[in-house]
């Protein structure tokens, strides 16, 4: 009778301890219910499991006794990644059929020369300026500041942020702004990979509006 009781208590506590191990914390992901559903068989972007035997214990695939179901890695790609860069010498067109901006990075004093004649393809509508403002806030504000005075929070640490309302910047064209966002200038880095050409033109529109504000 007494041993039975102790046995029952032991079983109950071990059950609790086991269950406590299910909770995710720190480096431990926690237990999964029906793990096959969490692990994609198809290549999953931003994920990579290079261990071929991972998930062998729940394997429902017909891929041999040594392979697991969690394996998710493309061995033909560089670094066995699932994502890969576009094929070389291919270009992306956007929904309006625009080709990428093809000018090269040039010295600061040549920007005006090479952007001469370039026009912002977008109209100066309130919607474009409003969209430009949203994009400015997420991409430019932390350095150039709310009013464009070069006083964003990052400028405390990153020296050399341009004051967009400074004398030398008031006269720059929208194409100049477009070029600088694409390739950077001075200490500013290239933002061509983050901001699409269409968004760059929208930001340029907004910056010109911002420069006229007091």
């Amino acid at each position, binding site marked *: 009778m007494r041993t039975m009781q102790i046995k029952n208590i032991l079983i109950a506590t071990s059950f609790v301890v086991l269950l406590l191990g299910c909770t995710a914390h720190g480096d431990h*992901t926690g237990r999964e219910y029906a793990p096959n559903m969490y692990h994609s068989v198809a290549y999953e972007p931003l994920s990579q499991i290079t261990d071929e035997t991972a998930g062998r214990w729940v394997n429902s695939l017909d891929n041999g006794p040594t392979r697991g179901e969690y394996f998710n890695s493309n061995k033909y790609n560089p670094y066995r990644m699932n994502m890969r860069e576009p094929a070389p010498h291919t270009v992306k067109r956007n929904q309006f059929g625009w080709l990428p901006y093809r000018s090269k990075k040039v010295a600061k004093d040549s920007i005006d020369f090479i952007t001469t004649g370039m026009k912002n393809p977008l109209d100066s509508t309130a919607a474009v300026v409003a969209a430009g403002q949203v994009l400015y806030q997420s991409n430019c504000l932390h350095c150039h500041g709310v009013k464009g005075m070069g006083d964003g929070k*990052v400028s405390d640490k990153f020296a050399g942020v341009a004051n967009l309302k400074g004398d030398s910047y008031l006269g720059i064209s929208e194409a100049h702004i477009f070029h600088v966002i694409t390739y950077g200038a001075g200490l500013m880095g290239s933002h061509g990979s983050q901001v699409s050409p269409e968004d760059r033109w929208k930001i340029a529109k907004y910056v010109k509006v911002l420069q006229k504000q007091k």
Partner: protein
Amino acid sequence: MPKPKKRFEIMTSKCRFVHLRIKGGTLTHMMKRLFSGIFTCVSTFLLCLLLSYSVQAQELPTDAAAITAGEALFNANCKTCHRVKTKLIGPALAGVETRVPSLGWIVNWVHNPAKVIGSGDDYANKIYAEYQKSQMTAFTSFKDEQILSIIAYVKAEAAKPDAAPVTAAAGGTGSGSSEPSAYLDAILVGMIIILILLVVILILIVSALRKFLDTKELSEEDKEIVNSPITFSSVTRSPGFIFLVIFIVSTVTFKSVIDGLYSIGVQKNYQPKQPIAFSHKIHAGQYEIECKYCHTGAAKGKQANIPSTNICMNCHSQIKAGTNTGEGEIAKIYAAVGFDPATSTYTGKTKPVEWVRIHNLPDLAYFNHSQHVNVAGVICQTCHGPIQEMDVVKQYNLLTMGWCIDCHRKTDVNTKGNAYYDKLVEIHNKKSFKVEENGGLECAKCHY
């Protein structure tokens, strides 16, 4: 000894005080020189009268008003490329007033650097060559006295001793979240003190009662009960104690079992160590960098994306030491992107950084970031929690189906400025309607 020839070239007001030193020569020669000396002085004096404004300004203003004005101008126009004491894109400006040929030279240079370089000026060409032939922007609209006030500011600033590094500035910010727990601690301590007091009072009552009973005549049985000592076994065998222990153990067990069962398949509080100790608290919190600046996919596609290292380099090309970890962690970015911080050049040897994925929906559920971020206008913190306060990111919410559904039931559809919803708004009598009413609970919206 200055050569007399020089005199004719110095066209400043100080010319008047240059002594005419003449060595030998004929009287006519002497007269000629004397006249030309007088002519120089007179012409300079006339120039002074004519351009009294600008020539007065050739001396650096020292009043506080001019220095303040100079500071404002410096911050608005020069700070992009120049600092007072450190070299940036352009040279450090401290001591510039003594370095350059003359104050007039600075005025000309700021107005039109190209012209000064083109004129064959030695100093201008030396600077131009030193800075890889990148020419300073011309500031044509500046008045002379504005330029001199900037120089006055630079001189005043250069004279100041170096400020002591501010170390404690970032320290005092983390107290906000600990306040409620401190409050709870106070309550807990208070309750423990009350309990101890209660126990003391009870002991006192028991001893008082015992003394009272001792004075009375009691039967043998009663005496035994009164005088029976309280031993460990008498306590553990009392039915009250057994009930209490069983009750506590079973309650805790029941709670743990239920919590444990509910946590299966839920990765809330998963907080793995990442290969680079990137702190969202510093980037998104302290420096207020928008999430979408780095997570470029959030507004555009299904995945929010892990930023590529070139985005890190937009700032870390210059910021080479971190706030928390110094140079060690940033060096990992440089190794991945192939950047030599000593020379600020790229080596071309790149390798990917293997981040640990935290938020992971099961394959059976479809989720699209852009629909939530761009169309619904949901801010990142709604699902990801206070990321801007996390040094190490953890999964803040459950990410279970019940959690999704709950939000779809409570949240109004963001119909503002979205023509797609115009007719729906009309059908709903121009009132807001919930995501639930727009098919937000349909199985096939997320499971297909």
